[in-house]
Structures are given as structure tokens and as C-alpha cells.
């Protein structure tokens, strides 16, 4: 069973790993991912970003079909890996010791 709309079958290989609805899940996945895995996701979503927006923006936010919602979750994972790929060259922020910051409240998507 596929998670994403048909026209995004090229992104389907990322769906099982990265369609994560909450920030704590995306943060945890980032920590356990290699830079190569994150770069692949980053490049794939980056190149389809306009098509993704054109697709998801057709639906009201409070009435999204499941596949569109999955596509948004995949895109928020792209957002999560943008610093590791563009800036840190890895999942961790240098010199942050064991500082933590838990996302306690997120609007539902």
C-alpha cells in the first residue's frame, strides 16, 4: 500500500521512514540517520517542492485526505533535515553537549 498520491511515486521510497506526524519523531529519526540518508531526502523533496505545494494547497487544512497529509509530514521531515544537510553536515549540532529542548506543543496537522 502506498502512502503518497500517485504523482509522487518518486518520493514513495522515503515515505516509510520519513512520513512522521510529530516533531519528536522527526527529531529522533534525524539523530539516528546518516548524512547520506538525510541528503537523499533533502534533494528529493527540494526538487519536487513546488509540485508538493500545488498539490497540498488544494485542500483545506482541516480536511486533508490521508495521502496529502502524509505528503505534508514528509515535507516537514525535509524541514527537519535542512540544517543537518545545509549547515552541520551531520545530525548533531556541534558543541551542544546534552542540552535538550522538547517540543511540548504542536498544532495538529
Amino acid at each position, binding site marked *: 500500500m502506498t502512502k503518497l498520491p500517485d504523482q509522487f511515486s518518486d518520493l514513495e521510497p522515503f515515505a516509510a521512514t520519513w512520513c512522521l506526524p510529530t516533531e519528536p519523531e522527526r527529531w529522533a529519526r534525524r539523530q539516528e540517520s546518516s548524512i547520506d540518508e538525510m541528503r537523499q531526502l533533502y534533494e528529493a523533496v*527540494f526538487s519536487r517542492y513546488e509540485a508538493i505545494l500545488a498539490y497540498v*494547497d488544494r485542500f483545506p487544512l482541516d480536511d486533508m485526505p490521508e495521502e496529502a497529509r502524509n505528503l505534508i509530514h514528509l515535507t516537514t521531515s525535509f*524541514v527537519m533535515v*535542512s540544517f543537518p544537510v545545509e549547515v552541520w553536515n551531520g545530525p548533531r*549540532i556541534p558543541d*551542544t553537549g546534552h*542540552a*535538550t529542548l522538547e517540543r511540548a506543543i504542536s*498544532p495538529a496537522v
Partner: protein
Amino acid sequence: MARFPKPAEGSWTEHYPGLGTGPVSYADSFTPEFFELEREAIFRRTWLHVGRVEQLARAGSYFTKEIAVARTSVVVVRDTDGKVRAFHNICRHRGNKLVWTDFPQQETSGVSRQMVCKYHGWRYGLDGACTFVQQESEFFDIDRAEYGLVPVHCDIWAGFIFINLGRVPEQSLRESLGPMVTAIEDYPFERLTHRYGFRSSVAANWKLMVDGLQEQYHAPIVHRNQRPENFDAHAAGFEAPHYQIEGPHRMFNSPGIRPWELPDDQIKPSERLVRGGLFGPWDPPDFFADTQVAGMRPGGHERVGVALFEIWPNFGIQLWERGWYHTYQHWPTSHDSHIFEWNMYFAPPRHASDLIAQEMTAVSLKEFALQDDSLIETIQLTLGSGGLTEFPLGDQEVLCRHLHKTADEWITEFKNRA
């Protein structure tokens, strides 16, 4: 070369002569004795922000707030008349904590028609009145009217709910905020309801964290890697266009980088793609397009994009020029630890692209905040040795100077009273 003019006295620090220019003692940030004094001298006397009115959407909505520094828990409710009330979260029968879920030390929230004690079942209305005593006839002439919940002073400004644990507050909330702070009340807080909340347990004194937010002298060094190589606006260091101090409160403006005006090679590619990042979503909400809140720019600089107001003692409101804001809050738990709460408030997204720009903002700020957290914990580690207690502060650290002086004054004044 200075990018922004300084006051006639030559510096922001000298503009406020009481601050002095000598080294500043940080003994207030690592000694248990000072922390013990702060409990009474500061946190039981001041108005403390505990939440937003949107958290109490309807009659019966409630949340609890754990205030370790005052050794208390408070329950805040909206009663059937729509009035917001606060009570000590303690049952009048034998002192059980009244409102909690599963873990008594953790905060909770919900909607309820009444508050029922988990121990012997006494009940209280949303107005705090005791409405039911289990096996009432077993008691000795008990008058329920005398056993209502103990109220805590509670008031609202601009949709922010404050409490005051003093027996009689020394000032009204509005008086205590003063004109500099209340001048931002026209910011459309009530329409910026899409909230992202972060929470962190920080191994550092609460004032060190406030320092880390109210000076940006560190930003070009600590946060240098977050910007592309070509972005050199910070190469010359940080200068604020305006600092202002009023009573125990303080504010500053940042120059306000406008990423939407920068060339491609000075912006993270993903930030340009989603039109959002460290400086917020690029596209303001429709209702905000022409909003001007003069109080955000008390120095009259038109181009400043950001204003941080540090409201004594532990609450910060940071306003951005494109219609979103965030708040910082510091809840001390010991002389070298506190809970840091960070809430970002946006307009409800119009469509998915707004949502993604908000998410990019929340994610970007977290990258910075973890760096700040970590450094502040590092400072605590070394300060704790007591080997060095006095430090020189520069003019871009004028607000840190003011914070430590204010803490010291409040403690001294309290001791003198006693």
C-alpha cells in the same frame, strides 16, 4: 564603526547612570543562599505570567502551573461567568494536591465542571466554593462556606494571564508593567493563536539564560555557522539600534535582517524555498499587512525588525515585524537549574505552505536555542567553582548589567525590610 548612534552620554550603559561601568558580580547566579532569598524577595512579590487566555477557551477550561521557586502549585480556571480565576492547588480538607493527572509533579490541563479531590472526594466549583463534603455529618459544625479554595491574585494584560502570590500585591499588574511594556498591547496577540511550545530543563541559573537572550554580542560567534559564507552582515559584530530600561524591565531592538530582501547566495536554500526560517515566516498574515505598533520601536528606528521585552522577573516577549511573536519563560528550580519554556505564536495557517514556513521557523530557532542552552550550562559549570565572581560587561551587555543589579536591589531591599 558604529552603525547606530549611541545616546549623548557616549554609551547605553552611561545613559543609565545607576548601572555603573565596573565589573559585575555574578555571585547571584551560583550561590544557594542568594537563590533562597529570591524565593521571597522576588518570586512571591511579583506578577508572574502563567499562560494565555486562549488556553482557557471556555467555561471550565483549566490548567495548573507548578511554581517550584515559590514551593507552590496554582490552578487557573475560567468560571461559568467567563472570569479567569487562580487558586492555590490544594484541597482544604487535608492538603492533598487538588488538580493533577497521573504524575503529581507534572502540569495538567483540561475542561471540567468542578474540581474533585482524589483523596476523600471533597468538591469545589469553578469559583472555588466548596460544594460537597463527603460524609459531612461526621465533621464538627463544619461550614462549607469557610472552606473554599484559597484564591491567588490573578489579572490579564493583552491576553497574558498573570498571578501574584503576595498577600496583597504591591502594585496592580498594569502599574507593575509600566508604560514601556504596555505600549506593545496593540500587537494583535489575540489573533496569533497557532502555538508551538518548547520546554527544557536547563542546568543553569535562570538569570544566566535571560542574559543569553538579552545580549546578542554572542550571536556572530556562537551562531556564525548557521548563515551561508557570503552572509557577512554580522562580520563586524553585533550592535543593537536601541536599548531601553524602565524600572525592573528592559528591552532592545535588533537590526532586523530581512531575508526576503537578501540575494540568493546569502540565504539557506531551504529557507528561500519555503519562505520561512530563523526570522520567521516571510509572508505576514493578511490582517497584519499594515500593522504598525509604535511601542515595538521606542527608539524610533523604522527598519528594526525585532524587539525583545524582558518583563521582570522571568518573562520575555519577542515581537517580529511580520506578524508573529514568541515568549520566553524561566522557572527556577534551584540556584543552578531552571525550567525554560518557549512558546511561538503564529496566525492560523491559511494553507499548507504557511504551515511549512512556520515549521521551518520553529525548527531553525531550536537549532539556535540548543547552542545557547549548552553554552549557558557551560558557564554555570565554571561559575560554580567560585574562582571568579566579577566580570566586565560591554555596552552591548547593558541589559545583563541591569538584570543583575535589579536582582541585587530587590534582595537588599527585602533584607532591609525584615
